[in-house]
């Protein structure tokens, strides 16, 4: 198979699913009324962005950026290593995303307690 075509298909698959996740998540955030659903949407967006990070850092045929005995051996053979920086960034981003999700969910619980509903279009006592 033509490696260029192959690469294209794979890239469409990876980028496509990442961008797809972002869009689906945005859709949930913009359309769905339930607070929990919106938070789910946010975490789906996050997932898409994280996938983009890793996809951008990926190098075809590269190995994980770990210099264990095997890793050194592979590097000596001329194998590239994938870019470690996006991975480090995603590590941070995942944890931050978790923190935000936790706070969001606690707010959802609070809101449900006060409003007895979790529909965002019913929760607008602050306006104008």
């Amino acid at each position, binding site marked *: 198979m033509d490696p260029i075509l192959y690469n294209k298909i794979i890239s469409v698959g990876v980028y496509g699913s990442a961008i797809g996740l*972002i869009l689906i998540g945005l859709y949930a*955030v913009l359309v769905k009324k339930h*607070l929990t659903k*919106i938070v789910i949407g*946010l975490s789906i*967006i*996050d997932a898409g*962005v994280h996938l*983009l*990070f890793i996809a*951008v850092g990926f190098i075809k045929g590269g190995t994980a950026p770990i210099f264990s005995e095997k890793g050194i051996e592979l590097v000596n053979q001329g194998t590239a290593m994938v870019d470690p*920086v*996006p991975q480090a*960034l995603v590590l*941070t*981003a995942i944890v*931050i995303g978790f*923190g*935000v999700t936790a*706070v*969001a969910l606690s*707010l*959802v619980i*609070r*809101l449900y307690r*006060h*409003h007895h509903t979790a529909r965002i279009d019913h*929760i*607008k*006592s*602050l306006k*104008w």
Partner: protein
Amino acid sequence: MVISPVHYIALPLLAAFLMPLLAKVNRELVRIIPGVVLTYLLFVSVVLMQRVTETGQPIIETLAGWQAPWGINLVFSQFTGFLVSLMVFMATLIWIFSYRFKKVDNEPALKYYILFMMLVTGSVGVVLTGDIFNMFVFMEITAIASYSLTSFYRDRDGAEAGFKYLLIGSLASTFMLLAILLLYTQVGTLNMAMIAERMHTVPVGMKVTILILFLTGLGIEAEMFPLNGWAPDAYSQAPSPVGATFAALVVKAGVYSLIRVIFTLFDIQGAYQYLIIMGIITLIIAEFAAMKQTNLKRMLAYSSIGQMGFVLIAFGIGTKEAVFGALFLMFNHAIIKSLLFMSGSFFVYNSTSKDIKGLSGIGKKFPYMGFLFSIGAFAIVGLPPFSGFWSKLYILIAAADESMLALVAIILLVSIVEIVYYFRVVAKLYFGKPTDKEVVHKPTFGGYFSMTVLAVVILLVGFYPDIITGFIHRAADTLLDKGAYISNVLSVGH
């Protein structure tokens, strides 16, 4: 241990991690520790500002032993130093104000002070850091602390405001992450100086896309229209000291990041016009919306948004004088809006409702508070001889120098609207028919103290602006000197 910019981050963090333990020793320590830390940081600011002013060179601190492009660094230049010092100063006063502000349980008090201190640290970190991803991290610290503090009272509206803030804030961080990612793929580094240096190699289309993502993400933090839906809610529902913190620190950090991105990172001229346009729209809509508010804190929030629009306009003009005016306005806004939030909070606290109507005649019970509030109101609408006048004057002169007289006219027209709603409150405070409610909550001594300090600063700067203009002039020069920023940061260790 030499005093260095990293103290701004390390010590509050250390204190924050210590505080849960200290809470077990003595409950009061929880409330005192942040003040001690902030006071120390004020001292640090004074020392560092002195050093920076003497040498004229920024202090670039490398972290973890890795010099500029490889590791993260903190840049304490005359520009960032000015903002940081302002932030720490304001934070100290706000701490004094919020000390025993309201009676809360011990457990929430602990959380409150931790979150408050982290809010300060996050904002300071955003300004200090020289690394774009690190800026994102600090922004998230600020954001999470803000979300939690917005709903600190756990009431119905607080939770609502917090959730809205969180929703929009999450989108902001998403866009910012995407922008950082794209930037990284293009220039292969996260250090802002190096990004700026390599920016010319990025294809134009990509550059604009990245800029748009940044502008959207950071515009949310900077309360730019139409991304500022969260702001009035958050300001009005957060505890008043936190509202003051938002106005004095958090927004400043947002505007700073926006300005840093546009002025230093990118070299797109259209961005300046964009700032002017968005600034005008933000200013107009916010001031008009403020006009019809019935809730005092909401009114202050809209006014705050409007002022940020004004700041953006000034930055958008982009000349040295305009940037100077913008920084001056940021300084003024921090001080004045904090004063308004602080004094306003006592009125709201003591009135029957949160409405402006409920404030009728309350100035008679709190004559001193009323006096302070009036000073704040006069200053923020830019009446001489208060400090707000000078910043407005400088910005207008800068705009006129660029022969943007229509812009000046718009700003002045909007200022009239501002005058109307502020003076309505002042008139109501003093001369409305008083309600019969007893005075329940006297301000604490700390409250009096911090508000008095702010009022004194307003008057001092108003009567003699030159005590502060020197710093601001140098800060403006530093911000505009992009080449010096790049060479200073990248030359460390080479």
